[in-house]
């Protein structure tokens, strides 16, 4: 288990991912070639870039096998990343983006801010209420009224 999730294995895994990506993009890049002169072809630069990505992917895989730079995977100590918190925050933001066109900027943003401040650990009801009411109104006043910026 430890070996699979080691930084060294990470380099090999990531190198593999980028290699597949390079092949995928290289193939679709090559498909753009219209059969004419390569110097004029829209495929020229994408194919060059995909090749470059492929070479660097192989270098990354090589680093993994040779233990080169494996120590970099060790993240600085102190604050470990919580996948659950990340997923929670991301899903909340996606729901916010999905709800915006339906519910309008001020009400949806107010609900989102209340939920997000709760999620980040704020527990004082007055603070949550103040942030979720004042912030959308302030943003609306500054951007919509002041700068004539369209809001979602």
């Amino acid at each position, binding site marked *: 288990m430890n070996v699979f999730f080691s930084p060294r294995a*990470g380099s090999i895994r*990531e190198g593999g991912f*980028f290699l597949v990506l390079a092949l995928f*993009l290289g193939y*679709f*890049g090559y498909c*753009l070639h*219209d059969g004419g002169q390569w*110097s*004029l*072809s*829209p495929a*020229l*630069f*994408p194919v060059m*870039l*995909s090749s*470059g*990505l492929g070479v*660097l*992917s192989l*270098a*990354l895989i090589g*680093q993994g096998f*040779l*233990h*080169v*730079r494996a120590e*970099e*995977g060790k*993240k600085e100590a102190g*604050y470990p*990343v919580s996948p659950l*918190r*990340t997923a929670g*925050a*991301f899903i909340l*933001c*996606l729901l*916010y*983006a999905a709800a*915006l066109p339906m519910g309008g900027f001020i009400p949806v943003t107010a609900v*989102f*801010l209340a939920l*997000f*401040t709760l999620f*980040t*650990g*704020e527990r004082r009801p007055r*603070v949550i209420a103040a*942030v979720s009411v004042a*912030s959308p109104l302030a*943003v609306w006043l500054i*951007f919509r009224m002041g*700068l*004539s*910026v*369209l*809001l*979602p």
Partner: protein
Amino acid sequence: MNLLSAIISQIDFAFVSLVFAGSVAGLFVGAIPGLSVTMATALLVSITFTWSVKNALAVILGVFVSGVYAGAVSAILINIPGAPSSVVTTFDGYPMARRGEAGLALWAATFHSFVGSVFGFLVLMFVAKPMTDFALTFTAMDYFLLALFGLTTIGTLTAKNYVKGGICAIAGLLLSMVGIDPFSGAVRYAFGISDLQGGISLIAALIGLFGFAEVLDQVARGTMEAIAGKAGRVKFSVRQMMAYMPLSIRASIIGTFIGALPGAGGPVASIIAYDHARKTVKNPSRPFGEGAIEGVIASEAANNACIGGALIPMLTLAVPGDAVTAVMLAAFYVHGLQPGPLLFVRTPELFATVLAGGFIACFALLLLGVTVVPRMAGVVLIPKKILLPVVTVLCVVGTYAVNSSMFDVTLMFIFGLAGFMMRTRGYPPAPLVLGLVLGEMMDSNLRRAINMAMAGDSMFIELFGRPSSIILSALVIISIGAAIPSVKARMGAAARRVLSLIGGK
């Protein structure tokens, strides 16, 4: 002397007031993550098109100069660059803030942004024409090599592992290929999604990778305490800053020169200046990347010096040096004027107006940097559990404001998640953004260069035979080669490990 008197003749109370009003607006636009100077300038063009050219230019220049500088404020205080040109400022500015030296970092950014801005406008004033003549000699291949140099430099600079930096740069270049090819009209990498035919929104990528990724990172790590508790008092010591003047001037020269080259702009200038500082400053206050004040100075002097530089080709050739000058170019056309060599013949007073507005904006920057910016540090005293949700809303609003597109907002969230994952695995986002910015320019110039070279006797000589191409190629090779010793050392260590395994140890 005639020019000097022409500049002075432009200055009146209304003009100065408008420059200051623009500077205040620019300060907030630049400092608030998600708002860009380009967006503010574009909005101003629509607001000021009924005004006189002089007044419109006054406000726009105020926003431009202050906005570019203010990108450093959020870069230093919350590690979110207000503009692409402030990305490099985060490298040392934010570590300084975390050490309780936010005040010093802000003062250094203010003072040397002022130095860089004044230097840029002085160059614009005195050597606009010769500089433009020199930039005119650059071929398409030179522009390609210049962009490649910028990418290889940032690749070595931002990643501990050069391979990962290179992967990010190429990923950015590949992302820039998305959309309609301006040469052939072919749609590249859109995969049938109509929203992708216009290309990847740079603003969405920028806000996602630097803004929303930061939010996710802080939430994921649960670091909710305010960092400004360690901000410290601001001591405006001019003497302390004067000690860094040689570096500041060198960075300003780099910034002005890069700014004068169309398409390169602030991000490339600040990266090259930072790299220059890293290589030439023998005893930095701290190692670069860990809170070296020299890193903040080089980046800020260069990106503000770019303003004067970027105006050189815009005014004399009608070729914008960056996105903001492109919008300014549009402002000239809106007012019925045509920038270019004839601008100096037909409306010479406009050149004086630009210079007058620029110099006043420099002083407005310094004044606001001393009076308003230290108080802006209070924004990070807000606990992150309150600040982060509000920043998320600003990220959404800032992204939506550019194209009124919810697709861009979704894209911003995707870039944010990608940026967060990149951080946790040691992939720097800055080369990706630079690749995204420079991709189209590199693609078009490469194809143009190859096509022109094919008409000559020897394609290689045509591509790389010019003195400028030789110098730029050498710079690219040196930039890549600079990473080799460390690679060599590590490969040696790996080889020793392999040998020890073979030896049974």
